[in-house]
């Protein structure tokens, strides 16, 4: 998975959540979209739903499941959570790189 394909995957997930009224309507997701933190497009439950959807998408057709461990993303400061789609896309791409 490349960074760009990860961003596209997340954009699809956000649109799906919006269609299900699980996320507020808004602009299409880009790498700069804030997922959690100041100016985020998701509330806390929406973020949990989003993370579960991303995990599900990453694990589709994989024998060995992967899990998003937010503290592994060095840019993600758990003391003051703020995460953009681009940072998460980098992490997803790294996660699915065979030698990562």
């Amino acid at each position, binding site marked *: 998975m490349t960074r760009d394909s990860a961003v596209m995957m997340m954009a699809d997930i956000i649109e799906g959540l919006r269609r299900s009224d699980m996320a507020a309507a808004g602009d299409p997701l880009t790498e700069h979209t804030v997922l959690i933190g100041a100016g985020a497009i998701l*509330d806390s*439950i929406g973020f*949990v*739903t989003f*993370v*579960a*959807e991303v*995990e599900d998408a990453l694990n589709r057709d994989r024998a060995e*499941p992967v899990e998003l461990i937010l503290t592994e993303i060095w840019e993600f400061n758990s003391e003051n959570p703020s995460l953009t789609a681009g940072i998460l896309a980098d992490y997803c791409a790294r996660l699915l790189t065979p030698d990562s």
Partner: protein
Amino acid sequence: MTPPVLLVSGASRGIGLGIAHYFLDRGFIVCGCSRSESALARPDYDHALVDVSDEKAVRLWVQSVARRFARIDVAVCSAGLVKSALLLAVTPTAILDEFLATNVRGTFNVCREVSKVMVRQRSGRIITVSSLAVPLHLKGAAAYAGSKAAVEEMTRVLARELAPAGVTCNIVSPALVMTDAAHAMGPEWADWLVQQQTIHRTVTVEEVCNVIAFFAAPESAAVTGQTVNMCHVG
């Protein structure tokens, strides 16, 4: 109509096994797990060998259940460690670590994975199992009761977190149930414990399941963050 799906940890014996039987009798699909094999072989029952303190194993188990049935309606965190203990002053730290691993870490792992499924489906019931050792402040139970108090607090926090998603989280704190683990503690201990309770008798697994069934009922959507202490006036 599709039968509801109930997931229960610690299902090979004791209260967990009783929960599996009780809900199978009421038309549920039940998916249980434990560290050891289960002798339970009934239609609509599926068992997995899972140590709940192993987060990866729990994740795989919960994901497999969610994929197979496309939902999880009720999750009961029944896996727990019960063993005789000494006064805190002479309790080895290893005993505390065992209680924390199974009771706290195990419940945490199951709750986390189940939460993700239930938040996505915007409904669900999570029920954790505590102990009267918490409100009774039983001597010799510092490690055990401490771990169960952590389970209770974790459940109440989770109840607040998941309320917006339509998921309820509640706690059943059974009075003494004469499981194999309770028998192993000896009759003197059982008699002493029953005398600490407000209602001086043991309870059956079915009575515990009745409380769980109340929390699990669709009509209980407005009940969350609550503890039922059986046989006890707090």
